[in-house]
């Protein structure tokens, strides 16, 4: 297929998820021309909703989002995987899933919109572990608020429930009223333990907001909110397009071209699904393609000028892979019926272990009591136990109303040995190698998980739990981070505190790949805040130009 005439814009963005689309929206509204290149297709919400309803395996978060051959994403968290190949002693703990399609992976997030704690940015200074970021919490605070307004985040009044991340303004929307199940859990924790259950800040409407409706509690935030009450990246895409940004779907970027001095990026090249190659020029470039794909693209673009990959003079592109590792237990409560699954999926958190002096030796964590509809699981379970007829119906009601699931986000730690490389054995239809990740759980994270198991045992006892079933090993929480790590020293980091690559003055990265530590809260709000800070920098530089 012949190449079209070169495309050009002031700013060229690779990736249309929450990071890329929100930058596009900010820039285009400031009069800056923007092209966003998205590897995957454009698909509407109702298509995903229909896919979900027809899916036999309802818990499959990737199920409603099949990938296209030119923009593969992991089909599931199974090791070995058809796309993301993980190796090493804890390969299974890094079998992440994500989406390559217009709007990005927030199509199937749960809307949990945590700010990181000030200490998360200073892990090395405060606790002697991991690394510090090249920015402080206060640098990001205004952008956290901007991201909360953009997404529409509801959360508690800090005067009544301080989540530990200082705020200059209240949340854009009042906290979501928690379900009966969460109320009972919160009461138990409050009365019987020294811990507390807090409202989880969520990008979910507690009133009509941004032309989207109030949450109706369909309990399907993952894999797909059926009514758009929960924010996802597609809404920023729509806003940016309405303001004049150009989004190109099915545009798989495979090369980053630089000038002869290797200091400035001059163009990116993408393949269309027929492998026709296209060149897109610009003044600034932002790679916002998810932690895994961003590092992959920088490595794939290696050439004579940069034999180890773009922006990789430090050798740290693809290193320091982090995640929130999960511990999970499911049991049958011996107390009153809770009927989890009425309302949104994740609404409440035990936050006592997000920070403490013990972080000098073990990682932090937070705990979710999952508010997931357990009717289908209860039914399959009761059938497997041999019940039929009337007795089966009794069992389904009992199990569906008494099943409790707890899971945690345990803090990972930057380790250069945990590394993403290009597969030498697998390529996609365009000839682009699949990503491969070596992963060994940091001891810091293992100790954190052990502490979590102790807490879970305590909670099971308090709830008179039976049929206690622990998910074996460790599992990924799909919050990958660190592959283009931030730092002040170009020798051991890829980007600076403004997410600008040390090596190329007009190349920025907007992704969790820049995280220097991973804290405990879900990563998306921090990704969005960093992206909006990139947009702010670009607006300033382009207006001066």
């Amino acid at each position, binding site marked *: 297929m012949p190449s079209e005439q070169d495309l050009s814009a002031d700013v060229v963005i690779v990736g249309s998820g929450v990071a890329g689309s929100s930058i596009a929206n900010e820039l285009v509204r400031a009069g800056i021309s923007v092209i966003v290149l998205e590897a995957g297709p454009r698909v509407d919400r109702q298509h995903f909703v229909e896919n979900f309803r027809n899916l*036999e395996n309802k818990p499959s978060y990737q199920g409603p989002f099949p990938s296209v051959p030119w923009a593969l994403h992991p089909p599931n968290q199974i090791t070995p995987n058809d796309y993301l190949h993980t190796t090493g002693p804890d390969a299974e703990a890094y079998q992440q899933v994500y989406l390559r399609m217009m709007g990005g992976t927030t199509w199937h997030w749960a809307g949990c919109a945590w700010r990181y704690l000030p200490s998360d940015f200073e892990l090395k200074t405060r606790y002697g572990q991991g690394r510090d970021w090249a920015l402080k919490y206060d640098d990001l605070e205004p952008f956290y608020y901007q991201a909360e307004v953009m997404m529409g985040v509801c959360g508690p009044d800090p005067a009544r429930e301080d989540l530990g991340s200082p705020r200059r303004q209240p949340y854009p929307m009042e906290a979501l009223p928690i379900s*009966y199940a969460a109320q009972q859990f919160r009461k138990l924790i409050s009365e019987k333990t020294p811990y507390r259950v807090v409202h989880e800040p969520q990008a979910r409407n507690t009133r009509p907001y941004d032309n989207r409706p109030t949450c109706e509690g369909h309990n399907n935030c993952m894999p797909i909110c059926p009514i758009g009450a929960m924010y996802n990246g597609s809404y920023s895409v729509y806003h940016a397009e309405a303001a004049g940004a150009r989004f190109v779907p099915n545009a798989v970027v495979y090369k980053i071209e630089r000038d002869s001095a290797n200091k400035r990026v001059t163009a990116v090249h993408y393949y269309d699904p027929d492998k026709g190659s296209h060149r897109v020029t610009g003044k600034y470039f932002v790679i916002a393609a998810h932690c895994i794909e961003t590092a992959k693209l920088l490595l794939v673009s290696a050439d004579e000028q940069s034999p180890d990959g773009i922006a990789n003079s430090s050798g740290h592109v693809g290193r320091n892979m982090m995640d929130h590792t999960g511990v999970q237990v499911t049991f049958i409560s011996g107390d009153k019926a809770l009927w989890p699954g009425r309302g949104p999926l994740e609404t409440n958190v035990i936050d006592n272990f997000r920070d403490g002096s013990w972080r000098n030796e073990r990682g932090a964590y937070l705990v979710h009591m999952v508010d997931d509809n357990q009717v289908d699981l209860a039914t399959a379970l009761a059938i497997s136990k041999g019940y039929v007829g009337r007795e089966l119906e009794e069992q389904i009601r009992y199990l569906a*109303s008494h099943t409790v699931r707890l899971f945690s986000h345990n803090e990972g730690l930057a380790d250069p040995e945990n590394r993403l490389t290009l597969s030498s054995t697998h390529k996609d239809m365009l000839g682009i190698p699949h990503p491969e990740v070596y992963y060994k759980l940091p001891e810091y994270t293992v100790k954190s998980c052990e502490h979590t198991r102790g807490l879970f045992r305590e909670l099971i006892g308090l709830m008179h739990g039976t049929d206690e079933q622990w998910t074996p090993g460790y599992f990924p929480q799909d919050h990958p981070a660190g592959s283009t790590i931030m730092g002040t020293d170009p020798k051991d980091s890829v980007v600076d505190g403004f997410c600008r690559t040390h090596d190329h003055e007009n190349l920025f990265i907007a992704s969790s790949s820049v995280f220097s530590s991973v804290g405990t809260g879900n990563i998306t709000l921090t990704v969005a805040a960093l992206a909006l800070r990139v947009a702010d920098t670009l607006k300033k530089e382009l207006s001066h130009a």
Partner: protein
Amino acid sequence: MAADRSCSSTRIHLATPNSMRMAQALRMSRRDMLLGAMGLATVAVGANPGLAATVDEDTVAPLFLALSKRLTDRETLNPQISQALYAGIIHAVPERRDQIGKLHALMESGNFSSARALATAAEHADPVFKDVIHEIMTGWYRGVADQKVVVYRSALMFDITSDAIYPKTYAAGGPFYWTKTPPEVAVPTGEPALSPSKFVVEPT
């Protein structure tokens, strides 16, 4: 409940996939197409000599409905859903047609006053009936046959929990309905009819 709490064969913790890859390897591939009841009613049921050309003409199909009523302890069940479930079950495993006929004959030969009584006798008579009954229960209660969704909202699991909870994506209680107190549920006293089976959760 006391009896099943100690059931060691259940694996409800296997809700993350890495633990389940072996299970997945044993599963049939899934198709993501919804089987509409009307469409299935005219689907050819197989090329075996002696089989009817369509489920509509299949003489075992009405027996499946009668058998389903006994095994669910219900007097009425939706005949269209019955046709679709039957078609899915015999499509996945053609031998099920004959087995369903025999299970129906067993039911007719005795005076079984409950699903439990029939299921217990059936497994005793032939262990394969346990699989047949599992598939019938999975069909009616989960709305799934042949690894496909036949019905979602109309699956009986949602009928029997409709006073407390909605099927995912079909909530109709209005904003914040979830704050209200749901119904209490007594500890069940009934016993299982069949021997327990390994529980397989599919990957996320």
